[in-house]
């Protein structure tokens, strides 16, 4: 499964509380639409760090990096490439 697909799968199954899947694409705003909230982001961080063996801390912990599937995927790719 591709990075984007893995992230999307997690968001659909774990963060959309009522189970009513709304269609969203790679650039759909996840924070502004309320799909990711302040607690959801901690759950997402745990998933990203465990699934992709990366550490996300300090300056990377800004909302912009979690605004869409595309931006999350970019962050993960960036962290993976830095080892």
């Amino acid at each position, binding site marked *: 499964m591709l990075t984007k697909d893995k992230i999307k799968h997690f968001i659909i199954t774990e963060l959309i509380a009522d189970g009513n899947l709304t269609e969203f694409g790679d650039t759909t705003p996840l924070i502004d639409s309320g799909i990711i*909230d*302040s607690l*959801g*982001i901690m*759950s997402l961080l*745990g998933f990203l*760090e465990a699934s992709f063996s990366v550490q996300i801390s300090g*300056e990377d912990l*800004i*909302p912009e990096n979690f605004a869409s599937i595309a931006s999350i995927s970019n962050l993960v790719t960036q962290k993976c490439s830095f080892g």
Partner: protein
Amino acid sequence: MDFDLTDEQKVWRETVIRFSRKELAYDIADFEKSGDFPWDAWRKCADMQLMALPFPEEYGGCGVDFLTTVLTLNSLGYACKDAGLVHALATQILCGLQIHLFGSEELKAKYLPLLCRGEKVFAQAITEPGSGSDAFSMRARAEKKGESYLLNGNKVFITNGPMADVVIVFAVTDPEKKTLGGISCLVVDDGMAGFEKAKPLKKMGLNTLQNGELFFNNCEVSSDRLLGKEGQGAIIFNETMEWERSLLPAAHLGTLERIFEISLKYAKERNAFGKHIGSYQSVSNKISSMKVNIELGKGILYKCAVLKDSKKRATIDASICKLFISESLKQACLDAVQIHGGYGFMCEYEIERDLRDSIASTIYSGTSELQHNIISRFIGL
């Protein structure tokens, strides 16, 4: 996951216990009456470098791991009967962790040495009159004006607030954005124009701890005092809570161990109807439950500390830790009063103070109800 303590950690734990029994054995009742803060004890703790433990040596810290810091709070909770002082120390360390994890090099260099030496008292201001556990519904506003923020609003119940020299203030910087992205953290010094502190509030317990209201009225804070980046406040808050919900329960677990030992001793010595009262199951069950909770509490507490030392997430673990240990402590204190009968109800036996102090542990740093909500979210409910 390895929870074995090193020989150094075991020796350090004993050292902190000896220090507490010798240097922090003042008459708390006097301070409870006056409402004063035990400054001599604070300075002794600073001399012992207890506030400096987890911070790098370059900032005046000791550079020890988080598990050792947790063990230190645990030892203080066990051997120091002044839960207010221990809470004040934990708050100082937590503020330092926020600055260390998210502060600019300038902020770290300026504040961490003062914090480590205990020369300045630090506080974090989140709670407001209209927002407690629902912290992100805060109204305090930090409006960008050129190179500064204009801070307006009130904070309440702020630990160390009335005596704080430095306050980490959470405020809304962008009301249009949702919680994520709309809240930021600013470092405010006592004495800045537009910042006022009220007198300490009277409480049912933790009476040496200074809690109070803070007022910000057009307080101009330069943007280089921003902790992290603008809009990072909610993430800083959640990140900080993982450390806070490990440090505070560490002290609570220590107190629970003390309560257990006192109750066990009394149950072996006190006789009723020709037998020591510990031989009655209605008493022994209470004490065995304390022992069960101590062992279970140690497991989740050490797990949280090891996770944070490994730079891993501990959101759900820290919530479980905080919920379980604070509720266990409150129950143990109630049971200890009951086991001691009339003596337990008397101030002289000091258990009633532990009970009063323990009530707050299920409220601050997120109520038990909020911890259940967090745990529920993480298990998909």
